[in-house]
């Protein structure tokens, strides 16, 4: 397969511009309770029902680290092949906002829990390494709600104090498509690890996007702008495209980029300034005196390392090597944990290659049509596997299998049952088939003569007729064999 070449550039009036992108992904830690309190983190509860005295910053309340959140973050760090820092520090990031009850966010500033790591992307033009700068833990804020009452704002503190991992990439991304691959890969790794559900609609995964541009060939980075809090991959891509073009226009008109924080306006598909560098908050970071520095022992990290599940890259290699799948197929199967789970469930019973085909072609078509994820699939892996097995065993033809597959979508029944109920079992009795073949040939004496005098294309016609008579149930291989003999 010829590899595509990377070709994302902004074509300006006087040349091509390269887009430099770095992402700060905020991933909610999958944990029953919050980072520093025992309140529930469940999404969608009634406002302010999952709030402890700590989360609402009552006087004298103190944070206590949730060990599980630490372990989840270490696991994520290991999944990113990153350095785990045995000593890290929680700092206070000070600013006032109504949904920030403490008046500061507990975060990690100078000494994060996780240091440098990397994520591998399989781009159509080859493998790409994206560097991870760091991963640190921090508290999420609550939510301010401004559109219920004209005069008042409401605050929901359910999210206040929920653990977030901020995963900061190096400025290694070069196109919206790479961002797409990167976020998906990151999400996939965390879902394999069970450290973040990656649910972007519920805000479990959001990102701040740093964008700058430079002339192709330049080695220095340009001034960057940060687009805050973008909560879908599509919006990230739109925001990057817009922001890059905006920056190119400014630079080509001879002006300079102001380093600033911008917001993406989904409706207008533009970014607009939120605050300039001068207006930037001075967060007055300092180590949180309520929390001692976090000291980890190496034993814990080794233990977590041992417990790590197989991650997408490893799984992919195994599928290619042991299952004889193409890199392309393997990639698709491992892209989401649920897909590989589905696949691995199927291949307990049936052929690997066929399973791959049925998942990536037939099943994906159904899922796409109905806008479902594989975990919502109307057909279970077990039943699809049993369908595939019936094909390999010659019990039904591929064509019948497709009909059965249609029926399975309506009710996720065991295909064997469907085949039996509908009488769709393949006719593989040579004597029965011979009868049909002879019947067809005797009805088409003229065509038999034409075939025998050289018009071999008519073979297909005979096959079709046999299938018609058998109502599609005839075993096509047998039909072929018998026809060949009878037509000699």
């Amino acid at each position, binding site marked *: 397969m010829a590899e595509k070449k990377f070709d994302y550039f902004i074509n300006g009036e006087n040349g091509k511009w390269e887009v430099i992108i770095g992402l700060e992904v905020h991933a909610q830690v999958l944990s029953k309770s919050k980072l520093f309190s025992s309140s529930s983190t469940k999404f969608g509860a009634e406002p302010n029902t999952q709030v402890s*005295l700590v989360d*609402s*910053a*009552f*006087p*004298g*309340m*103190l*944070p*206590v*680290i949730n060990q599980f959140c630490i372990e989840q973050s270490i696991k994520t760090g290991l999944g990113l092949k990153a350095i785990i820092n045995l000593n890290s520090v929680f700092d*206070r990031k*000070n600013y*006032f*906002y*109504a949904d920030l*009850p*403490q*008046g*500061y966010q507990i975060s990690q500033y100078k000494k994060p829990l996780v240091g440098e790591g990397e994520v591998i992307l399989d781009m159509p033009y080859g493998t790409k390494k994206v560097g991870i700068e760091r991963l640190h833990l921090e508290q999420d804020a609550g939510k301010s709600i401004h559109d219920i009452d004209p005069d008042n*704002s409401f*605050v929901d503190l359910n999210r206040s104090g929920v653990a977030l991992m901020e995963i900061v990439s190096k400025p290694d991304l070069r196109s919206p498509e790479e961002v797409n691959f990167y976020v998906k890969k990151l999400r996939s790794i965390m879902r394999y690890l069970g450290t973040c559900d990656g649910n972007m609609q519920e805000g479990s995964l959001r990102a701040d996007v740093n964008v700058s541009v430079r002339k192709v060939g330049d080695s220095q980075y340009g001034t960057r702008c940060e687009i805050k809090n973008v909560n879908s991959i599509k919006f990230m891509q739109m925001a990057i495209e817009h922001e890059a073009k905006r920056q190119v226009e400014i630079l080509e008109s001879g002006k300079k980029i102001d380093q600033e924080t911008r917001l993406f306006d989904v409706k207008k598909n533009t970014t607009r300034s939120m605050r300039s560098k001068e207006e930037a908050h*001075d967060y*007055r*970071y*300092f180590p949180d*005196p*309520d*929390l*001692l520095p976090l000291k980890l022992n190496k034993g814990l990290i080794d233990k977590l390392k041992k417990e790590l599940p197989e991650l997408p890259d490893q799984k992919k290699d195994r599928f290619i090597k042991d299952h004889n799948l193409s890199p392309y197929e393997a990639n698709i199967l491992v892209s989401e944990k649920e897909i590989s789970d589905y696949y691995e469930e199927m291949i307990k019973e049936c052929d690997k290659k066929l399973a791959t085909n049925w998942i990536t072609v037939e099943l994906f078509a159904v899922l796409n049509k109905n806008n479902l994820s594989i975990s919502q699939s109307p057909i279970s892996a077990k039943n699809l596997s049993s369908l595939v097995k019936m094909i390999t065993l010659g019990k039904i033809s591929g064509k019948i299998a497709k009909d059965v597959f249609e029926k399975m979508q309506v009710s996720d029944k065991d295909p064997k049952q469907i085949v039996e109920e509908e009488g769709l079992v393949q006719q593989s009795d040579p004597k029965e088939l011979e009868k049909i073949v002879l019947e067809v040939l005797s009805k088409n004496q003229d065509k038999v003569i034409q075939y025998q005098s050289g018009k071999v294309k008519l073979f297909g016609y005979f096959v079709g007729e046999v299938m018609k008579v058998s109502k599609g149930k005839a075993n096509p291989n047998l039909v072929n064999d018998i026809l060949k003999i009878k037509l000699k």
Partner: protein
Amino acid sequence: MKNSLLYQRLLNNMSNISELFLTKIVNGIKKRDFTSEEVTKTFINNSQNSKKLNVYISECFDDALKSAKSFDKKKDYNGLLSGVPIAVKDLFCTKNVKTTAGSKILHNFIPTYESTVTSNLWSKGAFLLGKLNCDEFAMGSSNETSFFGNVVNPYGKQLVPGGSSGGSASALAAELTPATIGTDTGGSIRQPASFTGTVGLKPTYGRCSRWGIVAFASSLDQAGPMTKNVEDCALLLQAMSGYDPKDSTSVDVKVDNYTSKLTENVKGLKIGIPKEYIVDNMPAEIDNLWKQGIDYLKDAGAIIKNISLPHTMYALPAYYIVAPAEASSNLARYDGVKYGHRAKGKNLIEMYENTRSEGFGDEVKRRILIGTYVLSSGYYDAYYLKAQKVRQLIKNDFDKVFSDVDAILTPSTPSSAFKIGDKTDDPVSMYLNDIFTVPVNLSGLPAISVPAGYDENNLPLGLQIIGKAFDEQTILNLSLAIEKRANFKKNFKVWWS
């Protein structure tokens, strides 16, 4: 109700029970010499006649009496503090009882929870008598920054009781509560104890839980006992201390049985006398008191050693960077959104500004400004970071000398109680009050102030003994040795009732 015999004897002079030490009261109740109700009534009566001292922010007399009566019915004498009413500094959150921290911004705040330290007292049989006045958010050395007005020292109508635990010190000295607890961030227990002729101990950082105490400077704050004598101090410390998993800075070190181990036998203990604590313009009587203290301890068989704590002079400046820095962040939560005072405003920012302008007093605002400044980008390294380094050097000083001595003896304060209003316009001279106490907080060590004599105006003066981390027992023992020899007696008459 039939009054007990001793109580009958005491009836002619109601305050006699209240003159008793905490330990005596606990034992008296245990031995049925008097009932908890009788004790409680006495302190309520004294308290009700103490308006001029302005020590109470909230009185819980009715509930205290109820608790006393129910205690007398249950007759459970097993607790360390069985049947004793105790008034506490209004910095401890108390369930269903208003907790103000001496500030307007919390003037209407009623916690739904109880601080760990007060819970510890209640679980040992004590109950709440009331909430005592203090400097606003514990920021002050004279109790003059309280939104609820200044507290008066029983030693004189014009005198401050010290601060920030001024209400606690005055209430204790005036016998309105048998004992009390305060908090000490830079001297807030020891300085008022010194000013009122009482005993005050700041435990090792981590000895007492900070959970449920309104925070001033988290890395320095520590609750501690304030009592009329050393034995009481040992008892109350024992009752209030202990590891608390809700406070990550609390330390899981076994709490000693301080009372049973309490002894004035300090023979052979090595006591350091730091030369850096001889400060300019120190009144001669402070110097004399210090010498007197040295003699007392020599007499008790201790060995006196001259030591040096070379970075002492940097302690106060470092403290006045670290403490305000933490305070500026700790006090950010008082924003009018969730509880406490809320002013009106056209928008969120204006509501914040109005709430905090109205809600905080001048000293608190001053420290928030200092703290915000020293943490600001561009100044952080020069101030906050430098101060933390100095803090480490001060700690190292102590570590070094403690390889050689068992405790350190210094004066508690550079002067006796000063007049109300004397230092309110001069924050630096006010801050200088903490010059001997602050290094101890920066180092997290335990220290006690024990009354040891009087100045020429008959105002009490205290000596400070600084101990090794978690070695409260040694400083209690040394204090006892001083106490026995100083034979300190209060020398004021009740003028306020």
